[in-house]
């Protein structure tokens, strides 16, 4: 990691780092707000893991360790920008205003979506790796045609960087100068496959081959991620075309609750990354530079606990959907096979007022 240029504005110890091209524009209250975001998102994420362990969720994909990358990127967006996540961007969803319980609905098995993507300008989770990057570019081509002052931000991981769709989306974005920013969270693993197997060159350098800028940022430095993403989005919005951002980070937890990372990585490595925690370094900055004291941090911890409790009760209240709703919105218009299926379930007693 140290051989490569990497934008960093805050060291793992929480000390300011100067950079020739970037300076942090964030004020105390904004940094404090991002700290709050990260603490809450981690707390909610841990609650979701507990819920899965207790059999209340089918699966959970933890984002622990990646809060700096996600909150930095999410906060860099303008309200009218549009984000296209993969499936681990809970922090971005939080920044876009998606209710946390809605992000868990898919994992509860009550929907394949969860929220209205147009209301929050944050697309639904895309589980097939890399598919969303093409949607983002297409959406950005629509923005161009509308002459709108908007940018598009799409997320994927080091694992998805091997997918044809991601590489095709680079081609399209470059050819059409689309107002899109590619945000790759290099969390070092695609389940068990190390990042080094996905790419022989640092991922951000791929952009050069496609004809647009690539930049590597310390993904655990929320201040740096914010500045780098904001500048890339501004460039996209003002006709500067795409940028690839590689946020160099680490997935502290498992790929999902079905994964066992002890089979493929060593404790010593995890330990190294513990010292680079994205939350701790901001806390240290807040203490040393802004004199934030324990009670103020405790207020946030209490708020996070409260939100976690609410999340838990919201999830537990999500019951089995009415079976007949499975036929809704498959098509926009009448369809004989939908009518046939619905009729069949009703006859079997699964309809409203049925026996079952």
């Amino acid at each position, binding site marked *: 990691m140290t051989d490569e240029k990497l934008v960093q504005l805050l060291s793992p110890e929480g000390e300011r780092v100067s950079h020739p091209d970037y300076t942090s524009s964030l004020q105390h209250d904004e940094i404090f707000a991002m700290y709050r975001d990260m603490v809450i998102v981690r707390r909610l994420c841990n609650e979701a893991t507990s819920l899965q362990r207790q059999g209340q969720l089918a699966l959970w994909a933890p984002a622990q360790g990646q809060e700096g990358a996600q909150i930095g990127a999410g906060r860099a967006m303008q309200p009218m920008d549009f984000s296209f996540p993969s499936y681990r961007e809970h922090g971005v969803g939080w920044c876009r205003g998606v209710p946390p319980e809605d992000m868990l609905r898919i994992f509860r098995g009550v*929907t*394949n*979506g969860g929220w*209205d*993507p*147009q*209301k929050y300008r944050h*697309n*639904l989770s*895309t589980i*097939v790796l890399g*598919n969303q*990057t*093409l*949607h*983002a*570019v*297409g*959406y*950005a*081509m*629509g*923005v161009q*045609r*509308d002459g709108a002052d908007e940018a598009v931000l799409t997320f994927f991981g080091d694992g998805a960087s091997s997918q*044809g*769709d991601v590489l*095709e*989306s680079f*081609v*399209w974005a470059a*050819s059409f100068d689309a107002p899109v920013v590619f945000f790759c969270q290099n969390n070092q693993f695609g389940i068990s496959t190390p990042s080094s197997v996905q790419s022989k060159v640092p991922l951000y350098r791929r952009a050069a081959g496609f004809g647009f800028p690539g930049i590597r940022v310390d993904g655990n430095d929320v201040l740096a991620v914010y500045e780098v993403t904001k500048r890339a989005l501004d460039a996209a919005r003002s006709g500067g075309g795409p940028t690839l951002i590689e946020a160099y980070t680490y997935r502290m937890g498992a790929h999902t609750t079905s994964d066992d990372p002890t089979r493929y990585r060593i404790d010593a490595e995890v330990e190294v990354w513990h010292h680079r925690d994205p939350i701790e370094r901001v806390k240290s900055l807040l203490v040393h530079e802004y004199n934030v004291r324990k009670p103020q941090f405790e207020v946030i911890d209490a708020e996070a606990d409260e939100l976690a409790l609410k999340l838990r009760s919201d999830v537990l209240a999500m019951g089995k959907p009415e079976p007949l709703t499975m036929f*809704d*919105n*498959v*098509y*926009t*218009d009448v*369809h*004989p*096979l939908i009518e046939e299926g619905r009729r069949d379930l009703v006859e079997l007693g699964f309809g409203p007022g049925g026996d079952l």
Partner: protein
Amino acid sequence: MATTTMTMAAALNEGLRRAMEKNPKVLLMGEDIGKLGGVFRITDGLQKDFGEERVIDAPLAESAIVGTSVGLAMRGYRTVVEIQFDGFVYPAFDQIVSQVAKLHKRSDGAYKMALVIRIPFQGGIGAIEHHSESPEAYFAHTAGLRVVSCSTPNDAYWMIQQAIEHDDPIVFFEPKSRYWEKGEVDLDAPPQGLFESAVRREGTDVTLLAYGAMVKTCLRAAEVAEGEGTSVAVIDVRSLSPLDYGPMVASVEKTGRFAVVQESVKTASIGSELVAELQQRCFYSLRGPGMRVSSYDIPYPPSRVEDEFRPSVDRVLDAIDQLMGFEQ
């Protein structure tokens, strides 16, 4: 009634033009569709008249052509995608099946995947490999998609416009071997709904069901059979998903005998579905089993032998003879 005679290729071109004039949100995207007008010239002149922003010459990657059309649909655009040849749609298969077909449902109706995926399909033009396939069953098998095919210039003109106006994603199969055949086009009113089958010829002994290029093959077979004293009905299936059984059931109940004639291979085909469903619906009227006249279950062969591979008039007549040979 204003009618004019034109080829299917010209009818598609006119239909696209009319849809683009009507709605500024309609875009075209595909390989070589702009300056060149497409390898079959279906989009000839459209980029000149509507500009490069609306008729998009795409880099050569089918998944991206469909994938970016999904993003455009999320923003309210209605993209008509041209897949250059049937055998080149597979790189886009993931986007079509995993995203195009499912996003309306996944978003609880928030997104409309109003895009049309045009695919020139079937063989008969002496082409090299990957240029003559019939992949329609893959798409008909996927819930969330609608699949249609035109067989006449009039249908081509109207069905492409109806497909563009519809809010569901539609895979639109064009029989490339019929692109240059002429027919009457009624410029005033569509002949019928997009998802309806059509009786092309009435008959009392045997019902033939076909779509795309095989409709004409069946009509020729029906003429020959008539000369031999057998009355054959021909139904153009038109909508491969959903299937419109009304006219089919009516005809099969009358004739008691039916065969599906298709250029695709037999196994797990549109014909398989039609035979299963019609046998169930028409069971008490049947005087023999439903039959399938298909291409053989092998990869599309070198074109010098494609006439022996695809159903011919003779093979259709054979099926008619077999059907007439079943005794009660």
